[in-house]
């Protein structure tokens, strides 16, 4: 059993899986991650998953868009080629609010799509990496790092007791679609 990297407990029922997480945590077995085909309420709190920083990223992408547009408009309309339009000042702020707003949204949206791809290692042409293919279909998977938790038979027993339908010992971290 020397080459085993991850132990995967595969559950058919989300409640049983949540129960399995409790059982493992009671026995001080650290859980690498949990994969489910659908979102489950309260699981982040149970696993101690930190809140996503995507909102902070969104703010900074947005503010970048705002600054980009305002500086470009200032350069174009007031610095490089000032034109008198209806007697208004060259840098008439209200006129440029709509386009600034649009660019804020655009930068924010593109930035978030980019950060999503970067953080999930998912972009066009790349085969997605998954630990168990059925986690995308009908199984709820608890993954345990086998190198950090030595008592494999105990883990095996705990998972079975909690109702795992199948237990896998993976020698590679990911089974990908490749």
């Amino acid at each position, binding site marked *: 059993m020397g080459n085993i990297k991850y132990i995967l407990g595969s559950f058919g029922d989300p409640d049983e899986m949540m129960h399995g997480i409790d059982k493992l945590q009671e026995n001080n077995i650290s859980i690498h991650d949990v994969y489910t085909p659908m979102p489950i309420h309260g699981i982040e709190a149970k696993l101690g998953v930190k809140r996503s920083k995507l*909102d902070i990223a969104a703010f900074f992408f947005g503010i970048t868009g705002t600054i980009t547009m305002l500086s470009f408009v200032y350069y174009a309309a007031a610095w490089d080629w000032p034109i008198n339009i209806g007697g208004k000042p060259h840098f008439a702020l*209200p006129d440029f*609010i*709509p386009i600034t707003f649009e660019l804020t949204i655009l930068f924010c949206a593109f930035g978030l799509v980019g950060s999503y791809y970067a953080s999930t290692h998912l972009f066009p042409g790349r085969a997605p990496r998954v630990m168990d293919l059925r986690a995308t279909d009908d199984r709820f998977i608890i993954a345990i790092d086998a190198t950090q938790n030595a008592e494999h038979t105990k883990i095996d027993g705990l998972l079975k007791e909690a109702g795992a339908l199948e237990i896998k010992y993976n020698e590679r971290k990911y089974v990908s679609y490749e």
Partner: protein
Amino acid sequence: MGTHNYNLTEQFEFTGKVKTLSIVAIVIGLAAIGYGFSDHELHERTFANLLLMAYYFATVCMSGAFFLAIQFVAQAGWSAAILRVPQAMAKTLPIAALILLIVVGAGLYTHNLYHHWNAEGLTDPSSPNYDKIIDGKSSFLNVPFFMFREVLFLGVYSFCAVLFARLSYNEDLSGGLNSYNRSFKYSAMFLVFYGFTTPIFSFDTIMSLEAHWFSTMFGWYNFASMWVSSLAIIAVVLILLRKAGYMQFVNNSHLHNLGQFIFGFSIFWTYVWFAQFLLIYYANMPEETVYFFKRFEYYKFWFYLNLFLNFLVPVFLLMDRDNKRKENTLLTISILVIAGHWVDFYQMIMPGTVESHNGFGFVEIGTAVGFVGLFTFTVLTSLSKQPLIAKNHPFLQESLNHHL
């Protein structure tokens, strides 16, 4: 997860300090109005303030009914446990509507309000006061038709608002889905009527104070004001009830949802406000810019304070997730938004009535305090008539377990 055991028959008791304070506030309001009417110079300003607060009161209660209707039509689950608060506001609407009708009617017949289109000889070509523009609008802006519209709109809104409350009460007694399905049906009809008539309602009540000027955005701008201030008031009432030991089933996910609503509709308000401003600013036509000219000449401070309180404050303070979930922070921001929409209505109404003779003193503060007291008194009275939770609402469990 799992089911919680909350007392589903919990009832609000309206007694003690809150009741005394609300009555004191009403007395202060009456004193301010009495003071305003004792001085002849202050008549018009008092009327303008009465209109402001009566309009604010009525539209907030209207939006309570609107909140209920949206929740039913969207078949929303999260709000099932908090519906009694907007319901209490909706049940108050008949009183608020009556007060608004009295103020509008009295202002109209004493010529203290609406004198831009309702004065001697404006529509008579032989009169020296003849005004061609007003004459052209007179088939719409004439006293009988104006009062008919006011009564019709407020009547239908009040009828539906009371109906929603009654259906919910029937649900408490008999259970089943019958009340819910009927609420759904009436809500859908109410929303269609409400959507088409609120712009006309605000054109009449507020925009016709300056009858020479018009803006088609004005109706939506008003709708945004009343809706976002109503949401803020719902949040304030919920938080204060929680602090007083009631409604412990309201968790911070409910507050989060309300906070998101306030945040989103504050941005919507700014969007509509700006859509109205930008077109006028850009086109620069004298008959349109006169509106903002007045606000810039005599109300510059209020003009900027309006944008500060209703845009910058909610956007920057409610953007953060934690601020929407913390009771005290949300309470403070909601109160700022409520005050902000007072400023908003102030600079909608004052330039058309008292023009440059505006002020901010006992009349303004006293009237506002009086109506806050009246709102507290009437809403809490109707809240205390029923249990604080609609125990047979089909989505109640979803709402009690609401988690974001």
